[in-house]
């Protein structure tokens, strides 16, 4: 039985038929919507190459069933830049050589955007490294990635703009 779901992908709301409920969000993005910036690395939640934001939170899109995300807002690497203007995290990855081959980079950048929104790491490189541990880089660009995340975070929290708010989540009272 086919399900129609509604997803807002990179700001565009669309109704998408899901003929096979086995479809992951990752496969829907790549094969159904041709948004191939999100990469399939391990397809088992171990490498982080498929990281996207769903309702503002970074997740592994390979371990989410598309049909279950009906109504969600999805942000992928394609939705980050504003025209030719790169997102501060993208700028920082370039400035700090946060990649070599580039395969893990969309996932690294989306994970960094999620990390900055979570607002848990502060300007502590130890906490940034820990919070980025779900993204593997086989080229070993970790030093540059950590610097890029710290710099982008500093830029975004010092001068938040309406286009790229850091929007830290507030904790709720238990």
């Amino acid at each position, binding site marked *: *039985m086919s*399900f129609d779901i509604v997803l807002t992908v990179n700001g565009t709301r669309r109704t998408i038929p899901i003929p*096979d*409920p*086995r479809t*992951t969000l990752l496969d829907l993005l790549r094969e159904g919507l041709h948004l191939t910036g999100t990469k399939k690395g391990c*397809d*088992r*939640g171990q490498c*982080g190459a498929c*990281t996207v934001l769903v309702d503002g*939170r*970074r*997740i*592994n899109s390979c*371990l*989410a*069933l598309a*049909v*279950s995300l*009906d109504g969600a807002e999805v942000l992928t690497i394609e939705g980050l830049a504003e025209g030719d203007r790169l997102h501060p995290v993208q700028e920082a990855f370039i400035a700090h050589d946060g990649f070599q081959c580039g395969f893990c980079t969309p996932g690294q950048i989306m*994970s960094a955007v*999620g*990390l900055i929104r*979570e607002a*848990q790491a502060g300007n*502590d490189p*130890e*906490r940034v*490294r*820990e*919070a*980025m*541990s*779900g*993204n593997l880089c086989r080229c070993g660009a970790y030093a540059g990635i950590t610097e890029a995340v710290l710099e982008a975070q500093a830029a975004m929290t010092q001068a938040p703009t309406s286009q790229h708010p850091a929007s830290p*989540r507030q*904790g*709720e*009272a*238990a």
Partner: protein
Amino acid sequence: MIPFEYVRATDLAGAVAAGTAPGAVYLAAGTNLLDLMKGGVSRPRRLVDITRLPGLAAVERMGDGSLRIGALARNSDLAHDPAFAKAYPAVAEALLSGASAQLRNAATAAGNVMQRTRCPYFTDTGSACNKREPGSGCDARGGETRLHAILGWSEACIATHPSDFCVPLVALDALVEIAGPAGTRSVPLEAFHRLPGDAPERETVLEPGELITALVLPPDAASFAGHSRYLKVRDRTSYAFAVVSVAVALRLDGGRIAEARLALGGVALKPWRAREAESLLAGRAPDEAAFRAAADAALAGAEPSGDNAFKIELARRLVVRALARTAAGTPERLPALPGSAFAPLPEAAHV
């Protein structure tokens, strides 16, 4: 992944009705389930999506002082909730020591409890596994057993339960609230997971159609807030399951231990409560001799299930270290690497 029927439940009664059918499983985030389905380890014929059930993600302080954690509360929301982390610091530390930020953002409280073992012979469909295929044997026996159980195992199964979250929860007497075809019930988390015995395919006390609706921390669980830690030894610095982990909660009174709670992870097919060790600690001064006696008691029944005798001594030492760090007091802020057993005090570094 074999094909399955997708059913989206809109209320609890409908979920239970749909989930009682043979071959049906409940779907929350699916971070563990989908991985197992891709590998052909889990082969459900129907997925009952419970993510739309109303009210199941709430975290509520109840009138009697207990805390009710809705089944769908996300691991990261719980751990990063300042009031939760202040009242139950060992639980927050355990949550943040597990998995990756992406997985914690998706994974739910009940899903964490329901996650399956990471025994590589269970996840490899080419290997014999009594848990996956009852009666087929256990290729882990005599295989690569470095990370397998040292407590409560049987000839049929030597796997461990991989959860970090469950370890402090079991130390704090958490309850599991369950709904099913016969109504609702509540069982202690300590009695929720089954030891393997000769039926390792029966992993929990859940009956067909039953699902977890909440985890409940009793009123006194918050009384340990000043002295609560979770320490975890793992093969990688981050994003790795525990080789051995220890949750400790102490109530100190007049320089003595008034009450101790102690549980171990990565050692058995369930989070392992060490009650004899707790009894030994009660009334004693928090010193090295008391900690060593407790560690010996906690591991008294341990037996290697293969090439893993080192885990017994490792667990003893980790119990001693966890008790010492807990007695020194809960850190003001969670360490940069939550659960690190090697970090210098007071602030853990990424080692």
